[in-house]
C-alpha cells in the first residue's frame, strides 16, 4: 500500500501529529524558551508516566470497559515498592518485582471478578478502587515512605549524557512500542479489539471472553504498577496519595486520540500524541504565565474539540458510503 496524503488523513494520529508540530512551532515563535533544555526535560518527565497511565486505561477501553482503579493500583504499588525498601531493606530489583506482582494481582482480580460476575467493569473497578486505596491507607496510615535508595533517586533525576532526555522516559517509550505491537501485530491484541467491537460476534468466533478480559486487566494493572514506581523515582518518596489524580487524565489522552469508549477502537500512537498534547498545553500555559487554574478549562475544550473532529470525520465517511457504495 502506498502512503498518500489521503491514507494519512484517515489515520487518527496524523491530525494530532500536525497539532503537536504546529503548537510547538507557534509557542516557540512567541516564547523561544519553550525549546530550552530545562523546559524540554520537564515536558518529557511529565509525559513519561502519564504515557503509561494513558495506555493502562487505553487497553481497557479497547475491550469496551473502564478501569476506575488505575490510580488506586498505582498508589498501592508505589507505597509497597517504597515501603519494602524502607522497612524490610529489600534490594531494588526485588522491590520492583513485588511492585509488578501487586499490579498483576490487582489487575487479575479486576478482570476475574468482572468475568465471573458478569457485572460491568465500571462497577467492579469502582469497588476495587476503594479496596486498593483502603489497603494503601491502612498500611501507610497516610504517612509517606521517605527512605528511598539512592539508585532509585538517581534514576528519577538523571538525564542521558548531555541531552535534556530523562532516564525516566526510556521505559515508557519501550512500553509504548510493545503496546503498539500488542494491539496491531499479535493475536491477543486483535482479539481484544474484536471483543471490544462486538462481544457477541467475538464469542461466536470462538474468542474466549474470559481470556480477553482478564488479559486486558492484567496488562492494565501491570502498567499502572510501572507508572506508580516511576512516580516514586520522580518524587524521591512514596506517598500514599500517588495515583489520586490519575483517573480523569487517563481517559483524556485515549479520547483525544480517537478512542471510542464503547470499545473496539484505540490507537497507541494517537494516544501517545494525546498525552504529549496535554503536556504541551499545560507547559505552554505555564510559560505564558497563565493562571494554572485555567489549565483544566483548556483540557476540557481540547477534549471536546478532539471528539467533535472525530465525529465529523466519521460522519463524512458514513455519508460518502451511504450515497456511493450500493451497487
Amino acid at each position, binding site marked *: *500500500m502506498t502512503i498518500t496524503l489521503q491514507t494519512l488523513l484517515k489515520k487518527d494520529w496524523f491530525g494530532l501529529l500536525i497539532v503537536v508540530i504546529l503548537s510547538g512551532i507557534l509557542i516557540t515563535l512567541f516564547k523561544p524558551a519553550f525549546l530550552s533544555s530545562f523546559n524540554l526535560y520537564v515536558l518529557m518527565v511529565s509525559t513519561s508516566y502519564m504515557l503509561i497511565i494513558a495506555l493502562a486505561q487505553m487497553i481497557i477501553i479497547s475491550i469496551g470497559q473502564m478501569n476506575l482503579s488505575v490510580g488506586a493500583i498505582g498508589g498501592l504499588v508505589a507505597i509497597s515498592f517504597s515501603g519494602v525498601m524502607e522497612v524490610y531493606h529489600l534490594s531494588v530489583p526485588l522491590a520492583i518485582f513485588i511492585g509488578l506482582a501487586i499490579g498483576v494481582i490487582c489487575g487479575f482480580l479486576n478482570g476475574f471478578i468482572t468475568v465471573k460476575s458478569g457485572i460491568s467493569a465500571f462497577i467492579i473497578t469502582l469497588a476495587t478502587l476503594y479496596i486498593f486505596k483502603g489497603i494503601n491507607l491502612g498500611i501507610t496510615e497516610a504517612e509517606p515512605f521517605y527512605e528511598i535508595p539512592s539508585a532509585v533517586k538517581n534514576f528519577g533525576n538523571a538525564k542521558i549524557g548531555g541531552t535534556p532526555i530523562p532516564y525516566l522516559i526510556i521505559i515508557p517509550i519501550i512500553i509504548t512500542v510493545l503496546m503498539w*505491537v500488542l494491539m*496491531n*501485530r*499479535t*493475536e491477543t491484541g*486483535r*482479539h481484544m*479489539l*474484536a471483543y471490544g*467491537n*462486538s462481544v*457477541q*460476534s*467475538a*464469542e*461466536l*468466533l*470462538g*474468542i*474466549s471472553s474470559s481470556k480477553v478480559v482478564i488479559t486486558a486487566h492484567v496488562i492494565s494493572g501491570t502498567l499502572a504498577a510501572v507508572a506508580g514506581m516511576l512516580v516514586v523515582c520522580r518524587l524521591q518518596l512514596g506517598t500514599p496519595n500517588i495515583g489520586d489524580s490519575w483517573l480523569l487524565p487517563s481517559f483524556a489522552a485515549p479520547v483525544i486520540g480517537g478512542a471510542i469508549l464503547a470499545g*473496539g*477502537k484505540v490507537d497507541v500512537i494517537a494516544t501517545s500524541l494525546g498525552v504529549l498534547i496535554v503536556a504541551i498545553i499545560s507547559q505552554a500555559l505555564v510559560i505564558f504565565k497563565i493562571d494554572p487554574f485555567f489549565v483544566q478549562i483548556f483540557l476540557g475544550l481540547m477534549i471536546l474539540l478532539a471528539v467533535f473532529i472525530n465525529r465529523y470525520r466519521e460522519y463524512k465517511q458514513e*455519508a460518502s*458510503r*451511504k*450515497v456511493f*457504495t*450500493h*451497487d
Partner: protein
Amino acid sequence: MTELCLEINRADKAFPGVQALSKANFKLKKGSIHALLGENGAGKSTLIKIITGIHKQDHGDLLINNSARVLNTPNDATLYGISVVHQERNLIRRFSVGENLMLNNLPRNHFGLIDYKEIAIQSKKWLEIMDLNIDPATLVSDLTVAKMQLCEIAKALSLKSKILLLDEPTSSLSPQESENLFLLLKKIVRDEGVSIVFVSHKLEEVFSICDEVTVLRDGKNACTSEKIENLNRKKLVKLMIGRDEQIVRAKSQNSKNKNLVLKLNNVKSEIGHRDINLELHESEIVGLYGLVGAGRTELAKCLIGIEKIVSGDVEINGLKQTIHSPKTALEKFRIGYISEDRKKEGLILIHNVLDNSSITVWSKIKKAFGYVTDGMISMKVTPYIQQLEVKTPSNYQLISNLSGGNQQKISVVKWLAAGTDILIIDEPTVGIDIKTKAYLHKLIIELAETGTSIILISSDMPEMIGLADRILVMKDFKISGEVNNNHNYDKTSAAIMEYIHD
C-alpha cells in the same frame, strides 16, 4: 446417499412456563439443503440454539456424523464443524475482510507476530470460492450487506465447517443478491461437501433451493425430512399454521380527491436525497419500494426530523412546515414512525409492555410536574393491547420475553395510542410468521380506513402489492417512478421492476 451428518432425536427443552420443544426430531443428510420452518414460537430458534451449543436439550440425543455429542458452548459446535451465519452480522466491522476470515487462526511470521501479507494470501482463497472479488484489506464496514454475508459464509468455510446454518439469510438482500447467494450455496454444497440448514419465512426461497423440509409447530414436528417434491406452498403453510393461509388485500380506492395531508416538493436532503416529490392523501397507503440502500428508511428519517432537509418544501395539510425533531413530528404534526429495526430503535427491550407501549403518550397524559401513574397509562393503552391481541401474561412482562410478532404489535400499539395522523411503517413484517403477518396487514388496512394516512416501506413485493394504493419506486436516493396499484400481482410487480432496472 442417505448418510446423516446431523441428527437430533426426541429432543425436549423447557423454559420457565413454556415447553419450547417436545420430542422434536431433525435429520440432516450430507450434501443437502434442508429447510427448517415454523411460525414464531414454534421452537425453531430453540432447535437452532441446541444445534449451535447455546442451549442444551433436557432430554434427547444429538448426533454429529453418527456419534453422540454434547455441545456445551458455541465453541464446541464450531469445533465439530457447525457454523452459523446469523441474522445479526457476525463480522468485526472495523477489521479488514482478510483479518475477519482468519481471526481464529491468524498466520504469524518468525517473530510470532501477525503476518498481514499471509492473511491476504490465505483469505483470498476463501473469498474466491464465494466469487468475491474484493481486496482482503478492505474494511468490512465498507462492504454492502450482501457482501458481508458472503464473507461470513467464506469465514465459516475457512473454519472447515461442514454444516452451515443460515438464519433468514435474505432478509436484507435484494432479489438479485438473493439469487446470487442461492447459486453460491448450491455451488458450495456441490464442491465443498457442505450441508446447509436453511431457515426462512420466505417459502418461495425454500422451494427454489431446498431438498428436504422439516416443519415445527408448537414445539413438535409437523413433518420431518419431507422431500420438497412432495410439497407445495399450500401444503407447507398448512403444516406450519395448522390451517389454510388467508391472503389480505386492501380494497382499491381512489384517494386522489381526498385531502392532501403531506406533500414533498423537490426535497433535497443532507444525506443525499434529490428531487423527491411525494403526495399522501387522507386514508391512503403509499408504498415506498426499492432495493436495500435506495434511501427509503432514510427518507422516513427526514420526515420525522432526524435527518436534515436542505432544500425543497414539506407541506403538511397545505401549510409549509419544517420538522426539527421526532418530538415536533409527533406532537405538532402527529407523524409517527414504526422502525424496521424494532430491537434497536423501536422498543426498549429491558422495559415492560406497559412502559413500551406508552412512551409516546406520556407527554400527553402527564399531570403537574410530569406526574404519571401506571393506572393512567394502563387506561390509555390497554384497549389497544387487547385490540391487537398481544399475547402477554401481563402488562408488566418484559418486552424481551415476547415473541417477535408480539413485539411488533407493541410497536404498533405505541403509535396507535399516540393517535397519529400520518404513520410511516418500515418493514413491518420482517421475521414475522405468516399468521401474525396477515394480522398486521389487516391492521394496517383498518388503520387507513379509519383515517390514518400511511407511508409503507417494504421490500416484500406481495405485501406491497397487497396493501398499497400507490407505489413509489426509489433508487439511489431518488424516486424513479410511480405505479398505480390495482392489486394485480403480475402486472404491478412487472411495472415496479421496470423502474428499478431502467
